[in-house]
């Protein structure tokens, strides 16, 4: 028996969500009194470092070619069989969501997705997931011998690393049975941490009045080392790219800090951000509904408050 983590890499490298997935699998394995192993595909970073997060053995396939969800899923399931796993843990990133369903069918296991906490029981497996766009939680019980747990990226966090090296075993990617997908072009935004992984997010809405005013937002984000986001009308009007749109119909995020500037706090917006650890709202209208969902609030004009805030952050950073 074992629990296997599919540990994603981006352009070969591990990120925070990679370690989060490894650590989650290690936790589940400990609870089940079994081993945690991992599978990595096309990793250039050294897989043995997953030992720091409780993984004893890593199956590494390095010849998988362009991303193909079937190749990935079949390789994960092959590694799961090899290690006699009864559970697979993956991260609910865009990449994870491409493979979760296919992996579940190939593994013939029960898939629980959007998981926000560690299991409350492992026998039977009962695990809490977020639902109704963060307006509720549902505990699921797994009714099958095998399970696939897909965790919310950045939701559960990464424990302090230990210093253990995992054994690394090379395996072949399973390319045979995959319907053809010909990748033409990959276009990755440079320089900014993808939103679902960002710890700190500065977001702005229609209150900013004009796309030309976004330098205010970018300056604050730069000072904090934060990623930028926006409300739906802002992306609808083309002021900001669609990939920055957060909310019920955009991306759901759960950063450590979410700063909302000139955003009213409509229920559909809150649906995508209310899982954030701390929320700061800056709005000129004291009645803006967002204040009800905030931890800290400033009633004021963004054009005056934000530059001052940026300066204050710079002062803090300079003294650190």
């Amino acid at each position: 028996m074992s629990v296997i983590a599919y540990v994603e890499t981006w352009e070969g490298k591990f990120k925070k969500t990679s370690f989060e997935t490894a650590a989650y699998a290690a936790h589940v394995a400990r609870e089940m009194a079994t081993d945690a192993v991992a599978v990595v595909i096309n990793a250039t970073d050294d897989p043995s470092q997953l030992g720091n997060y409780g993984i004893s053995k890593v199956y590494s396939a390095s010849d998988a070619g362009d991303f193909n969800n079937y190749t990935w899923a079949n390789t994960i399931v092959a590694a799961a069989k090899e290690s006699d796993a009864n559970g697979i843990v993956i991260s609910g990133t865009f990449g994870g969501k491409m493979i979760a369903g296919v992996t579940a069918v190939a593994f013939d296991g029960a898939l629980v997705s959007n998981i926000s906490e560690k299991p409350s029981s492992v026998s039977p497996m009962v695990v809490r997931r977020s639902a109704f766009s963060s307006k509720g939680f549902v505990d699921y019980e797994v009714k099958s011998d095998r399970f696939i747990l897909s965790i919310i990226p950045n939701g559960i966090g990464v424990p302090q690393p230990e210093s253990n090296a995992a054994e690394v075993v090379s395996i072949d990617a399973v390319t045979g049975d995959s319907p053809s997908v010909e990748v033409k072009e990959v276009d990755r935004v440079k320089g900014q941490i993808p939103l679902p992984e960002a710890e700190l997010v500065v977001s702005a809405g229609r209150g900013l009045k004009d796309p030309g005013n976004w330098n205010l937002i970018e300056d604050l984000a730069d000072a904090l080392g934060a990623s930028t986001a926006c409300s739906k009308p802002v992306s609808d009007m083309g002021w900001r790219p669609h990939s920055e749109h957060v909310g019920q119909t955009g991306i759901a995020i759960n950063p450590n800090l979410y700063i909302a500037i000139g955003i009213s706090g409509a229920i559909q917006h809150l649906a995508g951000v209310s899982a954030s650890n701390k929320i700061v709202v800056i709005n000129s209208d004291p009645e803006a509904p967002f204040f009800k969902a905030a931890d800290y609030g400033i009633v004021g004009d963004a054009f005056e408050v934000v530059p001052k805030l940026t300066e204050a952050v710079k002062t803090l950073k300079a003294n650190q």
Partner: protein
Amino acid sequence: MKVLVCISHVPDTTAKINFTSDHKEFDKNGVSFVINPYDEFGLTRAVWLQEKHGASVTVVNVGTAETEPTLRKALAIGANDAIRINAEPTDGFFVAKQIAHIVKENGYDIVIAGRESIDYNGSQVPGMLAAMLKWPFVNACVGLEVQDEKAEVIREIDGGKEKSVVSLPAVIAGQKGLVEEKDLKIPNMRGIMQARTKPLNVVEPVDSDVKTAAVHYEKPAPKGDCKMIDAENVAELVDLLHNEAKVI
């Protein structure tokens, strides 16, 4: 060309969500239901394929009789016919299995679903459906052009976009970008009248094993009070974020 659009019947985006007092169920009282917003983009994209390429568009839902108004709305938007698989949609696997059966029976060139249902946010059905059919799968699709036996697609990836070509038949899980918001079709009077007489076929589900069960529902803990800081004193906010919240 035959297009199947999967329609999930979900609480309106403004709905307040409540659970029954025993925490065993989602309380539907007073909640109005709509076509899942992600599926609306797919439906409009499918109707364009109908208008430009003469495709036939079928909509499918796994649900009880209460979802029929949602399917009628999809017919009013322009689908040719509808199928309701008469069962409570208990989990993603169950739904995928039911739709896979319909696809195998009727044969389609493309299945368009949504990236996720806004009720259970599972992002499960389309990928499982593709796997059951062994068809290519494109998640978070923001661009779709169909040509002959192929589709050129753009999908969101972590921190960017990827353009690729997949062979048809395929399963597409879409969102805004398949069409733009302003282009979403809304039912007009003529559409609503026609929808009344379009076929809505009810079929019984096939057997499926139970993989998961929802056992307990709970609302998030209420937020504490918001601490207000004077606009003239932003340094205090930075101090609180650093020393109290410890987030910067």
